[in-house]
């Protein structure tokens, strides 16, 4: 399994680099704000949080779509399945790689946010609860975007694999605006992630290679 994961990471280097660049740019942005204007809840209200979120979802859904699309065009699984490897293992390694990308991208950003909020926000349970809910929502939204990318990546043609996952992920973002970051949103996102992964796996295991 580790070999398959390493192979997936090798193939998705560009996305990991992009994720790292995204993370670094956010941290640099934050640090520059700290040093230039001082940090306060007022100054943070002008930050482009929504575009940051959209970019992250595009990145993760693109990763999922790319993994499946490249597999289909380069016939990677067609070759791998002739080795001592099952399609299920290939898919699992793929998903683990996607989750790794999400964690590696979001973890530093989350750590940066924790530091910022510790500086800006007073330590009362309300803000801590809001932060936890926010992190949970972003993580689940990322997983859901990635899963939708996996789901659409194997579709025939080019348009659906390239744009389909991103479009579906962008439909999900307003869900957070609509429902907030509470448990209801979490349940919906978990449901979307679960069914997308189940269906992607089922399709991948039974499709002609």
């Amino acid at each position, binding site marked *: 399994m580790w070999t398959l994961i390493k192979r997936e990471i090798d193939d998705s280097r560009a996305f990991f680099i992009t994720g790292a660049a995204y993370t670094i740019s956010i941290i640099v942005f934050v640090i520059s704000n700290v040093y230039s204007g001082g940090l306060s809840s007022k100054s943070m209200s002008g930050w482009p949080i929504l575009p940051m979120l959209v970019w992250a979802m595009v990145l993760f859904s693109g990763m999922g779509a790319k993994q499946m699309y490249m597999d289909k065009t380069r016939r990677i699984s*067609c070759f791998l399945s002739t080795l001592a490897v099952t399609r299920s293992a290939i898919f699992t390694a793929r998903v683990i790689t996607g989750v790794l990308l999400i964690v590696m991208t979001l973890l530093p950003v989350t750590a940066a946010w924790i530091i910022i909020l510790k500086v800006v926000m007073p330590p009362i349970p309300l803000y801590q609860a809001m932060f936890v809910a926010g992190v949970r929502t972003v993580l689940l939204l990322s997983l859901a975007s990635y899963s939708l990318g996996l789901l659409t990546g194997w579709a025939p043609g080019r348009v659906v694999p390239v744009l389909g996952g991103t479009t579906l992920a962008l439909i999900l973002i307003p869900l957070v605006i609509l429902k907030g970051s509470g448990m209801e949103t979490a349940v919906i996102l978990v449901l979307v992630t679960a069914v997308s992964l189940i269906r992607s796996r089922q399709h991948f295991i039974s499709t002609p290679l």
Partner: protein
Amino acid sequence: MSDIAIEVRDLVKYYGGRCVLDGVSLQVRRGCIYGLLGRNGIGKTTLIRILLGQEPASRGRTFVLGTESMQLDARTRGRIGYVAEGHHLLQHYRVGHLVRLCRRLSCQWNQPFFDKLNETFRLPMERRVRELSTGMRAQLNLALAMAIDPEVLILDDPTLGLDTVARWQFLALAIDVIQRDGRTILFSSHILSDVERIADRIGILAGGKLVVDCSLEELKRRICKVQIIFAESPPDDLPLTGIIRQQRSGTEVIITVANWDAAKRAVVEAFRPQHVAEIPMTLEDLFIECTNPVRMPTAV
């Protein structure tokens, strides 16, 4: 452990509205070298892909080493070596990287054997697979398939793109593999001389069906080209079943007959020909006769 390495049961495969395989059944026992023949587009590669679980069948079931093809587990897959038509590999990988990947993903990897193969083939480890010639890709594919010490080796036109020397080397390797106990080979090729050299049994696909499934000797014995010379004009129709092809020229009739036996010979003799002789055929001749699309009417 079952002695049947590969089994196909009533396999039907449709691509869209086009039927490719129409109820094919065969068995390949362990230790057998089975040559699967057929014209281009007849369904050999399709059958092999279905066997390996890369393609679902429309109907019917296939088994390799006792496991259904779409449910082959990792361990069983590790016991199957496969050389694909077109030598499909990971094109964007460097050769060395690909070799390392295959080694790590295999259940058993025979590094000395691979090194020996590499000495023969002299594969460039630093080059990308897509930069290799067709022949070198074939050699790489072969080396990777054989290095895992497979119990079943499935070769789909493995010598496609190989020069004469490389083909000779491959055959030598194949014979080397054959000599190891219990190894089974399913071998599909258009170079029938190669097949004739190493195959025990022959299967020929035609019209979506398996029309021949027997040993090579049996095939040569049972499909016969017979030259019949009559004193006067030959009869309009010879009352023989299994006529594959019939050619007439004056008083001479040359028929290719399936399941030629004494009874059919007696039928021919009943017309008191001047001369009846069996013309020996190579496998290539047999194949052409069997799969020639020109159909001759069968006896009524």
